[in-house]
């Protein structure tokens, strides 16, 4: 094991070790807990920057130990995994800052932040998994570490949501397990390889289609593909930082990332297309996109509306991949990052509305822009990004997916994008109109005073930072070092020259 092999482990340890220490801290040890949280998050970003520099210069970072006979536990840092790890690490830092402010007076903070750190650890592990079994281990671990966060409030509603969450995600995990075992029995390997390890093997295409279906349905639970999405709106009972984590950093993204891994590194995109499985996947993603948007239209609870929005938006990633063209893949992959930044901003803002004024419903948002202008401005920009308004990042994703679809002759995808944008506008613009232009009520439901400030700075800073990133990466999308630039590098490796 050389020095480069330790770096993936250090990335995991940077959240795992603080998490384990935090579990043991008393509730009153606020300063130490905060230091550990933020220190771990910053350390992780430093390690990641080092790895990104290395990967861009061709260095291999791989940690490998035998797990079961014939299969290793592999952590491998390639361009794709680093993209997801970076997303998780950066948004973890933002969410940690936000959660510290959000849970200032709440009970069980050590338990919360302990699981919070473990959740990010498993997400990072899942991203760096070098084979399907390692992926499965972290995929299941992610379920177990996020469950306590979903039921954190301990109410009956929360426990019910938690049970639903477990039922869905463990069921999904079983499907992935079944697919993995079947695949191993046929191929004798589970190693992720650029353009897939199945391509070229002499296996019955019918069997491969069944395995593909098992694996996609398994990860599709976390990716909230319709009809496997039911857990996501229910999980909205969790505190706002958890919602942000579920929707933008960890769980949903893990599902979408799983789809990417299965299509690219298990089957290979060109082989998957030749099996005829990409078109049904694209259709499923399209149905999810439209269904999620249509359901979001009728939700009065702000977080539920955002949850159905996630159901819709995450499927852009799947759609971009399933269209099976290099340009659409760029759009799908980059939306993994873009959607994360926009959606986390929206959840931060929803949390600010709830925490500062006690506002939870869309119908209660009248005039909130005058009371909380900065939070509402961040919400506005993120919502416009979700609709696909330039120069926000959402436009970049939709542009590439649409262009890629036209490139491979799947023009119908453009109609799906247009329909979804229309529905996005229909459920976001009324919120903006209400927030900015309707008169505010005489009294807010549960207003907390922060002096002259609209809310605590730890609650305000994260959404402003994430929305600024979402704006800058959209406006300067073609610059080197942006997510789009990195994704173009990935796409070049996933398609045969």
């Amino acid at each position, binding site marked *: 094991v050389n020095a480069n092999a330790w770096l993936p482990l250090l990335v995991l340890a940077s959240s795992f070790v603080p998490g384990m220490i935090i579990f043991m801290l008393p509730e009153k040890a606020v300063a130490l807990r905060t230091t550990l949280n933020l220190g771990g998050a910053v350390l992780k970003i430093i390690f990641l920057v080092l790895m990104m520099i290395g990967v861009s210069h061709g260095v291999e970072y791989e940690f490998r130990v035998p797990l079961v006979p014939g299969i290793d536990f592999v952590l491998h840092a390639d361009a794709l995994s680093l993209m997801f790890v970076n997303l998780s690490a950066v948004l973890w830092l933002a969410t940690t800052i936000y959660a510290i402010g959000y849970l200032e007076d709440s009970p069980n903070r050590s338990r919360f932040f302990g699981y919070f750190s473990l959740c990010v650890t498993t997400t990072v592990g899942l991203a760096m998994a070098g084979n399907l079994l390692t992926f499965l281990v972290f995929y299941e671990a992610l379920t177990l570490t996020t469950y306590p966060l979903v039921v954190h409030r301990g109410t009956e509603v929360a426990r019910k949501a938690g049970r639903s969450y477990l039922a869905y995600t463990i069921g999904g995990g079983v499907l992935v397990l079944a697919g993995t075992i079947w695949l191993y029995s046929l191929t004798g390997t589970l190693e992720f390889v650029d353009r897939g390890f199945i391509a070229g093997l002499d296996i019955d295409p019918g069997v491969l289609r069944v395995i593909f279906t098992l694996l996609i349905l398994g990860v599709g639970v976390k990716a909230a593909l319709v009809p496997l999405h039911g857990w996501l709106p229910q999980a909205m009972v969790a505190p706002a930082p958890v919602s942000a984590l579920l929707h933008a950093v960890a769980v949903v993204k893990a599902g979408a990332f799983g789809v990417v891994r299965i299509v690219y590194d298990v089957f290979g995109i060109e082989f998957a297309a030749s099996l005829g499985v990409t078109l049904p996947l694209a259709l499923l993603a399209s149905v999810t996109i439209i269904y999620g948007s249509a359901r979001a239209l009728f939700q009065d609870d702000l977080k539920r509306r955002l949850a159905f929005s996630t159901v819709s938006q995450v499927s852009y990633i799947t759609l971009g991949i399933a269209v099976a063209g290099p340009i659409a893949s760029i759009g799908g992959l980059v939306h993994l990052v873009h959607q994360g930044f926009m959606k986390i901003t929206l959840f931060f803002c929803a949390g600010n509305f709830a925490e500062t004024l006690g506002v939870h419903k869309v119908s209660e948002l009248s005039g909130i822009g005058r009371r909380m202008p900065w939070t509402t401005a961040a919400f506005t920009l993120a919502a416009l990004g979700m609709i696909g308004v*330039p120069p926000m990042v959402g436009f970049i994703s939709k542009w*590439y997916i649409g262009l890629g679809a036209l490139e491979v002759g799947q023009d119908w995808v*453009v109609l799906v994008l247009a329909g979804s*944008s*229309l529905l996005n*506008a229909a459920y976001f613009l009324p919120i903006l109109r209400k927030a*900015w232009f309707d008169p505010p009520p005489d009294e807010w439901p549960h207003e907390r005073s922060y002096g002259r400030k609209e809310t605590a700075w730890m609650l305000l800073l994260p959404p402003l930072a994430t929305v600024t990133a979402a704006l800058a990466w959209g406006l300067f999308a073609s610059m080197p070092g942006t997510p789009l630039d990195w994704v173009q590098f990935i796409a070049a490796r996933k398609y045969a020259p």
Partner: protein
Amino acid sequence: MSTLLVLPLLPLAVAGWLAVSPRADQLSVGWVVALVAAFPVAMAALAAPDRIELPELLVQGNAALVFDPVARAAVLLFGGLWLTTGLLLTRTTAPGPSAIALLAALSGAMTLAIAEGGPLVYTGLLTTGYGVYLVMACEPGDDWRRAARALIVLLVLSDLLVFELLLSAAASPGTSPQVGLLLLGLVALVLRAGIPPAHAWLPSALVAVGAPVAILLIAVLPAAAVFAALKLLPGGSSQIGVVCLLLAVAGAAWMTLAGLAQTGSRATLGYATAATATLLLLALPAGAGPEGEVAWLVVALLGACAALPLVPLQRPGWTRDIATALVLLVHGLAAGHAVQHAVQALPLGAALFAPLPALCAVFLLTLAARRTAGIAGDDAETEPTRLTFVLVLISTLGLGLAWTADPPRFASTWVAPVGITLGLLTFRFLPAHTRPRIPPGDLLGVVERAVAQALRWLAAFCSRRLPRIQQRGAAWLLGLWNGAAWSRRIKYLDLRLRAWPSTSLMMILVALGAAFLLAK
């Protein structure tokens, strides 16, 4: 840093500063907006052509900022509109739009004006559209809400169509756009420019908002749509010339009927603006012209329309009448010139119908102007102002530069007198309860009365003298077929010629000529 970058960034920077400054409430919104808007106006007047490549912006890597004739016209129009709005806000105590909303919309308009490359133009177009909606939504009261809802739906639909257009164009670069795509662009343009049948929000919005917002609503959205179309559909859209003509003729006729049915000046102005937008639609398939002729016509036509809400803010008198007359004249001449430009992209037979939308637009604006003339200039919340002349000056400049780019011919001059005359006459003969009472001493009133008098004389001439003349003529014509009379006439002529002394003189001349030749 190039001054081109300052155009969109300056309003944004000022808006950002206003958002964070604790002293923002103490500043006059009007002066802030006017000062910021003065910069584009100065740029339009003084700056040399320029270009900056911005390959790292958005997608495709072909984004650029250019300052060509089209951009100059757009910067002048948008800058002038915001300057006027700002100056107007300094003279009113009525609650107006917020400075941040106005500056955000101005930034979008400036981006659109100087942008090149589909996604960047799209960004400017969207920011302008939503910015104007934002400005409108700052209005007090609830009357504007219905119109605003319609507007935002149209904007979203139009944005989606433009997105599809851009995607399709990017998917097949280097090829001329297909007719289907051009029609897509055409529908997008119709939706966001207030062109019939997507015009209904405009008259009701104009009735509900104050003069500062009305100026922007009239001119910004149609202008933004046309400038965007000039940038996104350059040159190759002559294939849809006939479709544009059909839309323009039908739309103009519809607007004329609807405008006639109105009684208020603002509502009529809304229909006049919609008719003007249909005229611009007609001019579009022929392209911008080498020196941005259509862009200057946009300045002239929409600048003139936007000037009309300012007329009631002037004290009654000859300056107000002059302003109104200038507005109508510039608009009419520009409308005629737009027809002259439009026929270049039309088949010969279809070109005969091209003046109809222009006539309708001029007619309706005249009607709106006459209905405006009945409004006394004593608004309690706004000081009297002659800001109309700012927009009149800008639109005159636009017309002059359009004429310089393509000198006017007969086709571009007859529309104004005919359209204005028709408008004046129609107003004169409308039922009394549908037209406001106009105070005495009105300049156009004199013209209107003179024309009406001429018309009465014509009517009397037609009903009394014309039958007599007709009878005489008929008798004379019948007489032409009388053979005996012809025989008498020829005989009479023969006798007269023989008796005429000139015959003798002619013989002397012949004899003298013969003698000269013989001597020689």
